[in-house]
Every structure is written in C-alpha cells, then in structure tokens.
C-alpha cells in the first residue's frame, strides 16, 4: 500500500509542476460546453433538454484528451521499465497512476459541472444528479481508458487509435449517465441507471489494472 501512495504522490507532483498537461483537457471541457449555446440556441428550454448530453460528451472527450499522457512520459523516460521489473504488483502501480489521473481530470470535471450545468439552465436537482453520475462514472472513464493508453503507449501519434479503441467502451457509460440526468429532469426514478454505473465502476476496478498491466508488458517488449 505504501508504494501505491508513493506512486500517487509522485504522479501528482509531476502533474502540478507541469500544469499544462492538466489544464488543457479542462479548458477543452469548458470551451466545448460553452460553445453549444452559441451554435444551437441560447433558449433555456432547448439547452436544458440537451445539457446532460453536452456535459457528458464534453467530459468524455476531455478525459480522452488527457489519456495519452497517462503512461507516455514514463514510457519515454524509462520509469515504466523500472515499474515493470519492480517486484511490486504492477496492477497496483497502474491503479495508483489511474487514481492520480482521476484526481487531476475527473475531480475538476465534477467540480466544474454544477457551474456549466447552471450555465445550460439545468435545475438544481438535475445538477445534483449530474454530479452524482460524474462521481460514479469518471473513475470508470479513467480505468477503461488506461487499457487503451497502455496498448498504444509505444506508438507515436496514436491519439486517433486511442479514440477508436476506447470510445466504444465508453458508450454504455454515456447512455446510462445522460439518461439518469434526463430522467431526473422529469422527476423519474434513476436508481437503475445509478446501479449500472456503479456496477461498471466495480467491474472496472476489479479488471482494468490487470488488463492494463498485461498490455503494458506487451507494449514494452
């Protein structure tokens, strides 16, 4: 567990000292959401209907944008090699890196979402549900994305490949999360969607660090 915290601390320290890698996806998230009212309509009724979808698609793309850097720097400077040959559990080290990624990308998105939700005329109750879905599902985005990031770590200019690999796996999350917010707007029950998102999160925590560690070992060969 000590090595988990050490790796987490190191990754957060590296990111704080290189803030552009953290800020770029967040700026993308804010800018893309704020462009929709200009392109579609500034009317409250129109925007509130599509707000959940807009915020969820933008957060997914923002996470995707940040995933390239998850293993890339450590691959290029050789730290990843040292992690792989370490006698510590590689899935645990990967889980630690994913946690750092979520803290740096997922949490800021969750914190920004109420502001952007209100900007798109979401009511207070729907904003709460939006935050809850993001809290349940952004860790899954980081976890599932880590599989793709580890598969493409040795390939240059692989952003498009990462999108092709990962976006299909994000679709169930997008469907359940945006449907939960939409249903909450009409006062309908959203328990089912939240259970599905929680189930995806549990399954992701249980499997993705292991899959990702196998993919990393293959990429390093």
């Amino acid at each position: 567990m000590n090595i988990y915290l050490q790796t987490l601390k190191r990754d957060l320290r590296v990111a704080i000292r290189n803030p552009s890698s953290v800020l770029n996806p967040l700026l993308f998230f804010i800018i893309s959401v704020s462009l929709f009212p200009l392109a579609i309509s500034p009317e409250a009724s129109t925007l509130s209907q599509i707000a959940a979808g807009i915020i969820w698609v933008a957060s997914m793309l923002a996470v995707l944008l940040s995933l390239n850097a998850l293993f890339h720097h450590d691959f290029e400077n050789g730290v990843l090699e040292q992690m792989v040959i370490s006698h510590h559990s590689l899935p645990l080290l990967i889980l630690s890196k994913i946690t750092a990624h979520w803290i740096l990308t997922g949490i800021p998105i969750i914190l920004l979402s109420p502001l952007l939700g209100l900007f798109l005329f979401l009511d207070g109750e729907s904003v709460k549900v939006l935050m809850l879905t993001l809290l349940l599902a952004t860790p899954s985005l980081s976890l599932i994305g880590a599989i793709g990031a580890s598969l493409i770590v040795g390939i240059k200019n692989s952003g498009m490949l990462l999108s092709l690999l990962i976006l299909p796996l994000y679709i169930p999350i997008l469907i359940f999360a945006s449907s939960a917010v939409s249903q909450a707007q009409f006062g309908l029950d959203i328990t089912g969607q939240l259970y599905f998102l929680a189930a995806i999160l549990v399954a992701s925590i249980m499997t993705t660090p292991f899959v990702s560690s196998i993919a990393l070992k293959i990429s390093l060969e």
Partner: protein
Amino acid sequence: MPSLNVNNLSCQRGYNQLFSELSFEVNSGDVLRITGTNGSGKTSLLKILAGLNAAEEGKITLDNHPVKSDEYQSEVFYLGHLSALSAELSSIENLEFLTGLNQSIDQQRLIEALNKVGLEGYENEHCGKLSAGQKRRVILAGLFVSNVKIWLLDEPFTALDPQGVKIVEECISKHCAQGGLCLFTTHQDSALPDQKVLAL
C-alpha cells in the same frame, strides 16, 4: 551465495537471430562484461535477464528462482539506456521513487549517495535542468543504496567523465567483493579487476 544460471537462451528480433543456445553462469563476486558489436543483442540480453523481455527459448534462474518470479525480481537492479528520471522532479525525489520500487530507504542515505557520485548541492535541482552526465549520475547513485544481489547495467559509463567512470567501477568492485554479482555492457575498456567477458 547467489548464482545466476542462464541455459540455452535464444533471442530473435523480427527475422534477426541475435543469439541462440547461450549458456553461462555468474556466481557471487563475479563481474561479467558483455561485449559485442551494435545490434549483437547486448541490450536484449540484459532486458531478458531483467525480466523486461521474453526469450524465445531458454531458462534463467537465480538460486533456482526463475526470472519474473517475485524472489528473482526483488534481487535485480536494472539500469537501461533511458534515464528513468522525470524532468519535473528533483534528483532526490526521482531517486527516492526509483529506489522505493525495490526497497524503502531514508532520505539521508539518498543524499549521501548523491554526494558520492559528485552531485553535492544538486539534491533539489530538477532533473530537467541537469546535463546528460549528471542525469546518469543520479540514477547510478541508486547503486550506492542498493541491497539487491544482481546488477544489470547497460552501458553504465555512457556520458560519464573519467572521474565518474572510476566512481562506478569502484562501486561495482565493492558490490562484488560483498558477494553481489554484476553484468554490464560496454564498448569502452574497463579497469575492473577479474572481470569475465562474454562476447556476443
């Protein structure tokens, strides 16, 4: 007394057979210098011995523990071509993390190790600002605090000045005198005494 056994090791990269049926034994106190032309498989051999790459055939054991087992991996220090340093972190922070992957070491010992490789005063300097030779010294400082048995060093003298080479050679000699074993690749002459040579 540790003993590294390599039996009938074969390695192929693409259509190129780098080496085949390679067998040797390295015992406690031995220094094995691996030589060969560019592309002869020196780095590949070290990576296989470190558990990073898989061999096509063959068996590697350390005291009967196979490569990639926890017992084997916990006894390996591998220094590759890459610096293994993050530019955003200081020398001491990088070293603390890298050594922490194998063992827990207090910061005072790490500072002493950095001093031994001639980096006194550079403990808090970000590695992105260091020269190639200084970066090499940071990672080599890990040797001074390492308590693992096998050192696998790929071109350890690259980018080092003669004084740096001497420090590393003394460190290797001391490690082997204490019962460790060291395998290293180099294109340079080495003043290490009693070294065995494996030509690929």
